[in-house]
């Protein structure tokens, strides 16, 4: 089972994501955005960073990278596709996930751990989590303010306080409905703004990211034939 980590020019979390999955015992392979085939790859992760400098709109240029056709095909086959932060933005731009991401409410970049509450276990991101469980995961973004654009959305995680309560103060970036993660209808494509790979060892202050990454790893084997 091999996880393809899609790297665009400007992506910067590709090595961190590989490190985290390898710490969970998974195999990873770096895939440059010019690749056109994903043969031998069971699922892909679009890691965080600033693909194409985040110019125009975040994710807007990356979605036209040659590899994205193969990613769409993989998604259509029901295989796991996960976007983290910038990767989430790319998946929204590509239309693989609903909605979009705009600048944070306070127009400032935010790098700090936040609390997210699990809304639903029905996705490759959350299947190892309990609904209602509150996780601590670092957020790291300028354009993390999620808007549905009127689309129907399946919410996987919401920003809350440590007790799991929703409030304006606990919504770091102004996201509509405090949405931190969404999935497609089938649950095999998911995106989230916080960085689970930054919460996998004790010294990082939280290991809750493992729950989300383990969900992904478990999904690699569980895909329909």
């Amino acid at each position, binding site marked *: 089972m091999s996880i393809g980590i899609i790297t665009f020019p400007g992506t910067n979390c590709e090595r961190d994501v590989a490190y985290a999955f390898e710490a969970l015992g998974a195999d990873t392979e770096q895939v440059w955005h010019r690749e056109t085939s994903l043969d031998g790859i069971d699922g892909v992760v679009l890691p965080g960073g600033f693909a194409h400098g985040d110019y125009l709109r975040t994710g807007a*240029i990356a979605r036209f990278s040659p590899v994205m056709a193969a990613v769409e095909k993989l998604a259509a086959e029901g295989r796991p596709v996960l976007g983290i932060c910038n990767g989430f933005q790319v998946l929204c731009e590509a239309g693989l996930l609903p909605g979009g991401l705009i600048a944070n409410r306070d127009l400032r970049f935010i790098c700090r751990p936040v609390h997210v509450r699990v809304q639903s276990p029905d996705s490759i991101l959350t299947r190892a989590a309990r609904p209602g469980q509150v996780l601590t995961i670092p957020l790291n973004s300028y354009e993390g303010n999620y*808007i549905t654009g009127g689309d129907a959305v399946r919410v996987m995680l919401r920003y809350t306080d440590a007790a799991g309560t929703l409030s304006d103060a606990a919504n770091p970036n102004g996201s509509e409905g405090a949405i931190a993660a969404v999935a497609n209808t089938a649950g095999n494509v998911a995106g989230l703004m916080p960085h689970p790979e930054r919460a996998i060892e004790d010294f990082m202050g939280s290991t809750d990211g493992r729950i989300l990454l383990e969900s992904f790893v478990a999904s690699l084997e569980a895909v329909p034939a």
Partner: protein
Amino acid sequence: MRALVTITRRPEIADPEGATIQRALVDLGYGDVDGVRVNRTIEVSLPGRDQEYVLSAVRAMCEKMLANPVMENYEIEILG
């Protein structure tokens, strides 16, 4: 020939930049500013092409990449 694309955020979508500028203008003493929207323009130059071509090419660019229909509308103006 050059085309000017104006990309506006759909009115129902939040505009944090506009909201922040409005607050700052009020702080600066312009208490009667009751709305600010920030939009982007993209000027595309396609030399040696006629108007019809430019219009249709730039429209296609907008549909595909320059604008995001989830949150934006666009308008194209030919600058000549």
